[in-house]
């Protein structure tokens, strides 16, 4: 788990040292129970969990479900908690890329054709009730998420949030108690690392609630015994979905991670307590309390000491200036996230944006730098314009990719004169009326005003269009708008980008078609090598800029503020939230 925070281990050592010093200085006995549980571990880990330590963190929304792989339970608000209570083969790192969790288990790609991955759960890895994590957990995960368990009515008996990836996996062959299993894909798949989790929901509980023993569950899945699996599926669908504050008995919701979910006050707080019998490195903080609080109110709560860590949603200039006003009391960190705003064009035949020159002109007149300066930089001083689509400024390879794929001489700066020339070249009657669709919120309205100001000067007439159902219109009524401005919430997945750009893709209602791009995406998705795939994506980006498929604008700012003395908190660009490395937070030493 320490792998999530590469490069900051140094601080952890320092802080741990400081803690040890203060412990000796203030306490005559010096020795704390639980400290130095093993002499062979690194100094960072020898501290163990500090008894009585608590860190309180504000989250924007309340918890709803233990099973976050159902369609209904799949929400970031559940990830905030599961970051601490569930450990799996991998997790999203701070930049959205997968990070291996070697304390849980290991995996290795053993063959490219067919794509075969061998997973090994560590021997000591178990649920917090002592049941080892093994074959039955994997099989249930596969059965629930592969979409193959179809009931008599033709519907999947499991309400899975997604069958992505699992649908390509052949039924794993393992026996009860096996800690090692081989997963074989029917075709190569780029995101294979992000599929099998292993420690998400406990199969032995689901089996028990469905009236089976774990062995019977394994047999039922091996034999596709739908009748036997139906009660299990019913529990899997609804049994781990809760009314606010109604936590079931602890044995129903065991943890695979360092923390146990011990208390839940509806709409108020969720308490996680370190599992004393955790198989991996004990987390430094004994208790993590998550308090539900709207982003606007979080700074005052931090100032009053009611919460120690905040990560307000949609941070504004005000958030930053308030935090600055707190001076040394808090440490403020800023960064980006993976939610990026962009302008998409309807470029089918007869549409205003059909001629390439018109799209190029629009890309030249949109004041991208000014937008970042006005809307993003106040909350994230390091913010830059988002110049690519599948690469983010937080990515290590962003700069290199931008160098190759982004035509900086064309769109690096706003160029009204160049835009005007392109418009004249296009030979269209000016002004070109553009129905510009976006959500009716203050940020989008400000953006639209800036764009209208600039682009109306070069022969466009940008008309604001803010229907409440703009999201539905994107695909359902492409004729009603010429350009749309909205955000995509990105993730570390690569394959999910395909449907945005390829001919006839589900999320490409724009009439965009480029055979090179289609080919590149086919290669990317069926590759099994992340590095190679990202190389290919650079080529796709260049094509997308040549065609001016769309105009990326910026990524949202991300602000984290931490009370003085707490170490190990990081800005997380991925959707998993600031709690993603709670097992590495080190409480203030007073």
């Amino acid at each position, binding site marked *: 788990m320490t792998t999530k925070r590469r490069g900051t281990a140094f601080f952890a050592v320092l802080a741990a040292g400081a803690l040890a010093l203060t412990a000796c200085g203030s306490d005559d006995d010096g020795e704390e129970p639980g400290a130095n549980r093993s002499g062979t571990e690194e100094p960072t880990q020898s501290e163990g969990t500090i008894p009585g330590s608590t860190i*309180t963190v504000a989250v924007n929304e309340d918890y709803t479900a233990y099973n976050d792989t159902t369609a209904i339970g799949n929400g970031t608000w559940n990830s905030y908690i599961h970051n601490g209570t569930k450990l799996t083969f991998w997790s999203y790192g701070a930049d959205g890329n997968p990070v291996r969790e070697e304390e849980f288990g290991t995996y290795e790609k053993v063959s490219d054709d067919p794509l075969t991955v061998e997973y090994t759960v560590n021997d000591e890895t178990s649920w917090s009730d002592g049941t080892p994590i093994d074959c039955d957990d994997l099989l249930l995960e596969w059965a629930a998420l592969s979409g193959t368990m179809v009931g008599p009515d033709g519907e999947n008996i499991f309400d899975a949030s997604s069958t992505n990836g699992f649908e390509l996996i052949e039924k794993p062959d393992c026996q009860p108690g096996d800690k090692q299993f081989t997963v074989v894909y029917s075709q190569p798949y780029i995101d294979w690392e992000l599929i099998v989790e292993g420690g998400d929901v406990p199969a032995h509980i689901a089996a028990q609630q469905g009236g089976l023993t774990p062995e019977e569950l394994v047999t039922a899945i091996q034999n596709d015994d739908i009748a036997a699996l139906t009660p299990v599926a019913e529990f899997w669908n609804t049994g781990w979905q809760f009314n*606010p504050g109604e936590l079931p008995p602890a044995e129903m919701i065991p943890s695979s991670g360092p923390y146990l979910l011990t208390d839940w006050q509806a709409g108020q*707080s969720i308490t996680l307590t370190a599992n004393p019998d955790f198989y991996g490195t004990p987390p430094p903080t004994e208790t993590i*309390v998550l308090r*539900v*609080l709207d982003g606007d109110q979080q700074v005052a709560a931090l100032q*009053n000491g*009611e919460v120690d860590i905040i990560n307000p949603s949609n941070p504004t200039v005000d958030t930053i200036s308030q935090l600055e006003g707190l001076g040394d009391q808090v440490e403020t960190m800023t960064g980006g996230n993976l939610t990026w705003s962009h302008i998409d064009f309807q470029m089918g035949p007869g549409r205003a944006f059909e001629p390439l020159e018109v799209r190029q002109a629009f890309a030249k007149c949109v004041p991208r730098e000014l937008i970042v300066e006005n809307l993003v930089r106040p909350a994230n001083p390091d913010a830059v314009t988002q110049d690519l689509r599948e690469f983010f400024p937080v990515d290590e390879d962003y700069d290199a990719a931008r160098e190759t794929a982004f035509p900086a001489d064309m769109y690096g700066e706003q160029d009204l004169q160049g835009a005007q020339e392109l418009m004249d070249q296009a030979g269209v009657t000016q002004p070109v009326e553009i129905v510009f669709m976006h959500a009716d919120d203050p940020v989008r309205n400000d953006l639209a005003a800036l764009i209208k100001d600039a682009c109306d000067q070069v022969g466009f007439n940008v008309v604001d269009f803010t229907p409440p159902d703009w*999201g539905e219109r994107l695909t359902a009524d492409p004729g009603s708008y010429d350009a749309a401005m909205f955000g995509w919430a990105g*993730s570390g997945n690569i394959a999910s980008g395909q449907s945005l750009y390829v001919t006839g893709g589900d999320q490409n209602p724009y009439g965009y078609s480029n055979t090179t791009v289609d080919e590149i995406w086919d290669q990317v998705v069926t590759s099994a090598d992340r590095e190679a795939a990202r190389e290919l994506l650079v080529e796709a980006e260049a094509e997308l800029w040549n065609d001016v498929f769309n105009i990326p604008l910026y990524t949202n700012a991300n602000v984290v503020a931490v009370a003085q003395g707490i170490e190990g908190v990081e800005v997380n660009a991925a959707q998993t939230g600031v709690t993603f490395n709670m097992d590495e937070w080190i409480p203030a030493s007073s």
Partner: protein
Amino acid sequence: MLAFIVRRLVVSAGVLLAGTFLAYCLVALSGDPLARLRQDNTPGVEDRIAEMTDRLNLDTPVPLRYLQWLGSASKCLVPFAAECDLGQSVRGQDVTFLLGNAVSSTLQLITVATFTAMIVGVIVGIVTALRQYSRLDYATTLASFFFVSLPLFWFAVLLKQYVAIDLNDWLADPTVSLPAAAIVGVISGLIWASAIGGDRRRVWISFGIAFAATAGALLILSASGWFASPGLGPVVVTVVGGAAALGLTALLAGFRYRHVLYAALATAAVGAILNLALDQVLSDPSYLTLIGLLLLAVAIAGGVGYALGGLQRKQAIQTSIGVAVIMSVTIFIDRMLSAWGNYFDAVDGRVVATFGSRTPNYDGGTWGNLLDTATHLLLPTIALILVSVATYSRYTRASMLEVMNQDYVRTARSKGLTERTVIVRHAFRNGLIPITTLMAFDVAGLMGGAVITETVFAWQGMGFMFVTALRDVDPNPAMAFFLVTGLAAVVFNMLADIAYAYLDPRIRLS
């Protein structure tokens, strides 16, 4: 009267039905509940969109969806069927359950605030009416308009800064400096001097006494370290009891007949003794015990009043019960403060909370938990009270002034009744009639939760549920809110009419 009520009920039901239809359509058409998912680019998002569409019937036209909702919601009207189904929220939660939580937390939030606002507002209104065009009157008028027009969002920020954060900072080392004591003293002096009134000399005397008492008390309390571990103790409880006995007697009966005074003083004495005698019981009582003790206190007070009241039996009982309630509240506060040290340590000295309804994982016994609730209620209650007090005081003042100019008040005066009797018996009662309507409306309105207050202070009540529902384009919780507030409005209007008829016999006759 019965026919009137039935007619009102039928009309109200129709209005409610039409209202639900309108509200449902407005919420459902206000946006796209799938907006969040439509901007999501993670794998399998189509499955989740399909699931939500299916679960919330999003592909059904809105009017038909309303009928479906009405069908299942109408089952709530069948008593004891336990079939009540108000649908699901966007996040898949059972709305009936959400509603239960929201109602209980809203009631928790508004009960104290409403009653305090009513009592304080009415008292301020009466005092300003009696001191019409005095400095106090002008000052209160100014303050009322100020508070009524205050943007609550901004006010909440001020409260958080000064009453929570700064106060907590101060509590770390609670000492009152000489200038601070002087400033508070001057303010107190101004208030008392203008409230008591009289000629110039009396004003200066009132000012001087109030100034000295306030500033002196602050300095003494500061020097004795009271702010670091506040409490009242049996002496203060006894003094408060005695003062309540004298004050209430003066207000309700006067000192001409001694029976009332004796009864009140006897009640205060019994209260002071019981406070000591019940020390064991009061150290960590259950909530039921507390309610039982309050009832016991009222019963004893009633008995004392009955036994000692003589000819003024009714007034004696009223006065004694008043004294008993005031003493009970004082003892309650005293005991709650006994948990101060424990609580102070538990929250690291950040006593006043800026949000939420309780400290997570704190269990300080009955008194500690009550203190915890009180510190969380403090800010929202102040915010709610200031606005309502302003309204109540203005209405009461106007109503009292009108009544004081009535012929029957002049008649009462000319009969030679004391000013106290004229005001308390003749003017005050009639002056309250219009306020009753206001109170009924207010209680109904408050059932809807104080939307802004709940949002700013993260209090998950009705208002919060409604705002969240609107933001998520989530008709079912919004409709649950509408149902409860709509019903409350109908019921309390009716109660107001009935109370009106009870208080004003002329309405019954017509």
